[in-house]
């Protein structure tokens, strides 16, 4: 008798279920923990980059006299100094600055879409999601150009000790420095670019759902918030890639 009454009595403690101790829904929590695990992956990439960099000699001469060599790790602003339409002009880090601004701007339009979702403003959610998709796609296009330039190389290339020249970079040869530099460039920016691509696909999916009124019928735009968390994380990773790959 007493057993059945205790069973029927509703449990209302913090961890008894049926409530949200972290004041966040299941989906949002899982997105946070996925992003945490993703941060570990990117952390591992940056560890490998830092370790490989310290494992090679730095360039110690005058910055003006810098030349590409297998002997030392290249100075990033001597490698990434090209800009589409400005052939042969030395514009250190200008293109990557543009890419950074585009991605930060896309983060802002994303947070504006989330804000519009809180107000149940379907038209504003659509508008800001479209802007975010646009900026994300432009970023991907920029990255494609940067990869193409990095792979095809500069006109001078690198003069080897046997008198031959190598141009551009792939996984085994690299005109800019040790082959490991090119490998890490492809892996780190490629893995980040894959994340941006997945983000654009997710954004297109939630844009279609928003247009169809799925979230309005559901009564909340939480899916926009969850994709927003992912999108901001992609921006966050770029902030770190930018510092450790292009600035330091």
């Amino acid at each position, binding site marked *: 008798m007493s057993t059945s009454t205790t069973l029927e009595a509703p449990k209302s403690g913090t961890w008894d279920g049926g409530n949200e101790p972290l004041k966040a829904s299941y989906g949002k929590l899982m997105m946070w923990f996925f992003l945490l695990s993703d941060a570990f992956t990117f952390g591992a990439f940056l560890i490998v980059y830092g370790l490989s960099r310290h494992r*090679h000699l730095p360039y110690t001469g005058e910055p003006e006299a810098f030349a590409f060599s297998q002997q030392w790790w290249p100075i990033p602003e001597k490698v990434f100094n090209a800009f589409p339409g400005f052939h042969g002009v030395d514009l250190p*880090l200008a293109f990557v600055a543009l890419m950074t601004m585009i991605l930060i701007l896309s983060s*802002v339009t994303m947070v504006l879409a989330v804000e519009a979702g809180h107000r149940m403003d*379907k038209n504003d959610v659509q508008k800001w999601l479209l802007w975010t998709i646009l900026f994300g796609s432009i970023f991907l296009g920029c990255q494609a150009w940067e990869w193409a330039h990095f792979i095809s190389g500069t006109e001078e290339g690198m003069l080897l000790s046997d008198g031959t020249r190598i141009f551009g970079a792939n996984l085994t040869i690299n005109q800019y420095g040790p082959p490991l530099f090119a490998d890490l460039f492809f892996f780190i920016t490629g893995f980040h670019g894959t994340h941006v691509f997945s983000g654009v696909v997710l954004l297109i999916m939630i844009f279609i759902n928003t247009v169809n009124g799925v979230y309005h019928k559901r009564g909340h735009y939480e899916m926009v918030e969850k994709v927003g968390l992912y999108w901001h994380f992609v921006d966050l990773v770029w902030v770190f890639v930018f510092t450790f790959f292009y600035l330091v």
Partner: protein
Amino acid sequence: MAHHHSDNDFEQTNNIPEPQTKAIWKTFGILVALTALEFVFAFAMEAGTMRNTIFIILTIFKAYFIVAYFMHLKHETKALIWSIMLPLALIVWLMVALISEGSYYFESVTNYFNN
């Protein structure tokens, strides 16, 4: 037709509150300013440990504004903040430890094979 109309009730734009976007654009301004500052240091300062330290500090500031305001973590519960930040702090520790290990690795490999 009437049925179709009631299906699209949500098209109505009345009853929607005004957007509150001032804080968002302010955070955007801060992020742009920090990025611009990074470029000033990249060109006005000699490369070295000091400049790298400045870059890393500015990066952490940028990360703070993205996570705290854009990802809204600042306004979540304490338990959620800690369950995200504590593992992250540990991975940052691992990064610092292993990256500084790189120069030791370089020296030992060089000494081992070049003698």
